């Protein structure tokens, strides 16, 4: 194999979008006189083109100038990504065990249903999700068997060429199916479809932070329009010189919380502020909070535990007074939480909104307590919804956005702030990452539950 043909046939195997980039990597490898290594890698991995590509892109870390060339592409730096990916294939024994366990659970539930047993709501839902998982799992198993026969055919000199193509096809199919499996295997959170309250507060950096808060608020507003959600501004406290000190909105629509749940946290901006005379770069922060809105059943407020304060409530009220100030403040005595609303001209409506907000606050507290218990066990990177954690940095000088949970750069801030596809693709990657973490936790729990009974038996 000559040194020129090697990259070209490799490129054929790779994803069409990423052709140019991989060609550059290979050429770089070759020009770095490590082409022997490259070739051997390519030859060895020829049967596994996708893995080969991953290998190449992870090697590329060492070639920084090239990384800048590839600004158009999302660029994964985290080497652990590829490790994680391999974890969720059937080659991983633990994962296969877990899937088998799920299949058994499904068979059990299905049998019970067929026997005419009344399954509760939770069980029925579980059966429904497991059904999908099992369907795909069966498909994957079939594909692996196919792969087995194809690899045998590869040894046969006559059939080699035909088999190679089919083999590759089979591998990509398997990868697609396995990715799908990861997406649906994680239990859907009951909250994912609930509406949210978005709160943005400027943090360190004064004026600059307020300006950035406004930009981010607008970004989510545009993102809501892009997704077809309803975005209602409930309150904006703006500063005299522009920007928002604090802004909040309710977003309602399908799957709002599900998509935005990992947006909460500290967003950081690094740029030369408009107000800066000496051209120095400032770092400012804003805090974003995403709180799911509970239904009235989730949080029941006892009328005795709340104190409603209406502004200007002194005097006889009623027909005796003309009052236009419709603001309402409600205090929840046990927790000390307050909610203040002056969104509409109707005091009654404001009261309803304030109660809803109060419920949201209390609910959030309950949730975060619950989450804390879970995350302390699980040590999740993405899933931790701590408000004070730095999650994303916008660097205007390099026109770069870094999500610290993905260690992952996106370029072109202007279009990112438009709240369109760029933001969506980042969010989707976050969700996938969170799903994987979730899955790891589920598997660990499964492992533990497997070993525990043995231990207890041993003790006896």
């Amino acid at each position: 194999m000559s040194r020129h043909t090697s990259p070209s046939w490799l490129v054929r195997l790779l994803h069409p979008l990423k052709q140019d980039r991989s060609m550059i990597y290979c050429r770089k490898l070759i020009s770095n006189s490590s082409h022997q290594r490259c070739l051997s890698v390519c030859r060895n991995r020829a049967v596994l083109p996708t893995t080969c590509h991953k290998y190449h892109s992870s090697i590329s870390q060492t070639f920084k100038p090239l990384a800048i060339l590839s600004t158009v592409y999302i660029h994964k730096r985290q080497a652990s990504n590829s490790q994680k990916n391999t974890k969720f294939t059937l080659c991983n024994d633990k994962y296969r065990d877990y899937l088998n366990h799920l299949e058994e659970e499904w068979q059990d539930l299905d049998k019970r249903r067929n026997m005419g047993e009344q399954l509760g709501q939770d069980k029925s839902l579980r059966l429904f999700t497991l059904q999908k998982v099992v369907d795909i799992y069966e498909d994957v198993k079939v594909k692996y068997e196919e792969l087995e026969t194809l690899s045998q055919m590869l040894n046969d000199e006559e059939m080699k060429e035909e088999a190679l193509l089919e083999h590759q096809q089979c591998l990509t199919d398997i990868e697609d199916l396995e990715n799908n499996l990861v997406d649906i295997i994680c239990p859907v959170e009951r909250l994912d479809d609930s509406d949210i309250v978005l709160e943005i507060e400027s943090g360190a950096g004064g004026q600059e932070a307020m300006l950035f808060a406004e930009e981010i608020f607008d970004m989510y507003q545009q993102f809501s329009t892009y997704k077809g959600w309803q975005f209602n501004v409930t309150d904006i406290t703006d500063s005299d010189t522009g920007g928002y000190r604090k802004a909040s909105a309710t977003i309602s629509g399908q799957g709002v919380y599900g998509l935005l749940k990992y947006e909460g946290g500290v967003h950081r901006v690094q740029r030369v502020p408009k107000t800066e005379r000496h051209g120095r770069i400032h770092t400012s922060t804003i805090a974003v909070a995403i709180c799911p809105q509970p239904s009235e059943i989730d949080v029941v407020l006892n009328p005795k535990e709340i104190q409603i304060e209406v502004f200007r409530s002194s005097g006889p009220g009623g027909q005796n007074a003309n009052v236009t100030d419709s603001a309402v403040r409600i205090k929840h005595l046990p927790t000390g939480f307050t909610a203040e609303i002056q969104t509409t001209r109707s005091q009654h409506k404001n009261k309803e909104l304030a109660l809803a907000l109060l419920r949201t606050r209390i609910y959030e507290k309950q949730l975060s307590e619950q989450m804390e218990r879970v995350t302390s066990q699980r040590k999740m990177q993405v899933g931790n919804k701590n408000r004070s954690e730095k999650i994303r940095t916008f660097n205007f000088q390099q026109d770069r956005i870094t999500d610290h949970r993905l260690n992952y750069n996106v370029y072109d801030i202007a279009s990112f702030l438009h709240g369109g596809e760029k933001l969506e693709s980042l969010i989707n990657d976050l969700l996938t990452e969170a799903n994987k973490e979730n899955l790891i936790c589920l598997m660990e729990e499964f492992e533990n539950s497997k070993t525990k009974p043995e231990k207890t038996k041993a003790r006896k």
Partner: protein
Amino acid sequence: MLIENVFKCLRQYTQLAVNSYKAEKYVSNMLFNRATFKLPLVTGHAIHMRNYTSQGNTRLKDVLKFWTKKFSDEGVSEPQESVNLIVAHAMNKKMIHEVNTHERASEDIVQAINKMCELRLKRTPVQYVIKEWDFIDMTLEMCPPVLIPRPETEELASMVVNSLQSSNVKNGLFLEIGCGTGAVSLYILKCLPKMRCVAVDISSVACDLTLRNASFYDLQDRLTVIHGDAFTDATLSQLQHYGRYNIIVSNPPYITSTDMLLLQPEVKLYEDHRALYGGEDGLDIARNILQLSRKLLHCNGSVWLEVGLNQADKIKSMVNQNPDLHLVYKQTIQDFSKRDRFCKLSYQPENS
């Protein structure tokens, strides 16, 4: 005379001798004389106003600042809120937070704001200045001198809706005595699409306004508005023509003679006294409604009333002392400020 002085006098006199006939006469003379309220707005602000309008492009923020100061100087109640609402209305929005106040406003808008603020300076209620107001989730047209719905009345309306929703009466007929803007009736009709309503008001302006508001929300088909005094035989027979009612709801005038003297100028000067003044003890109309209920209500029908402070107990004792009304006092309900504000009664004739 400056407006502050009027209030000072008023405070002094009322504190010294509320019952004194002389003081009453003096204060009421001053209050009824609209000229006293118009006095302070004569010339002062015309000069200031030029200061900010002459620059051509005016920022809304400056307009807000100017009028807020003006209002607080002149002792207009709720200066900040008033200006905010007026400016928001001029920008075709409801609340100030929907408006970008850093924006520069066109000359027309500034003119419109100034015009409205001058009305407010004459103590016109904001609701009449912007000619609309919100009642729970409806926006209703307001028109002087029809009583502006109060936040307490929103509670009354939502309580009636809640009780109807939890009971089986979802396609009945109810009567509102003194409908004013129509807020209560329209809210109930809007929430319960099978209810029908008869609304009666003594003021023809109120009747017309109710109809206008009803057609805005497309509720006129289920609503009949009758102009007249419900306590005259002629109107009563008209009301009886529609059969017996499941519910009578009313926010009757309940202000006592003493309280009438202490009203804010906004209320006193601009709102219909027929919707405010409830006789010596403020219960004249409420009593009449209770008398009427046996002629109009179904068996087990209920009466919902909004009353003034300390009046709920009086109603209760009155009902208990007059068994021939066949009314059972069910419940006193408190408003958001935790004061007795609403009465619920039930009509239960003997052996029927």
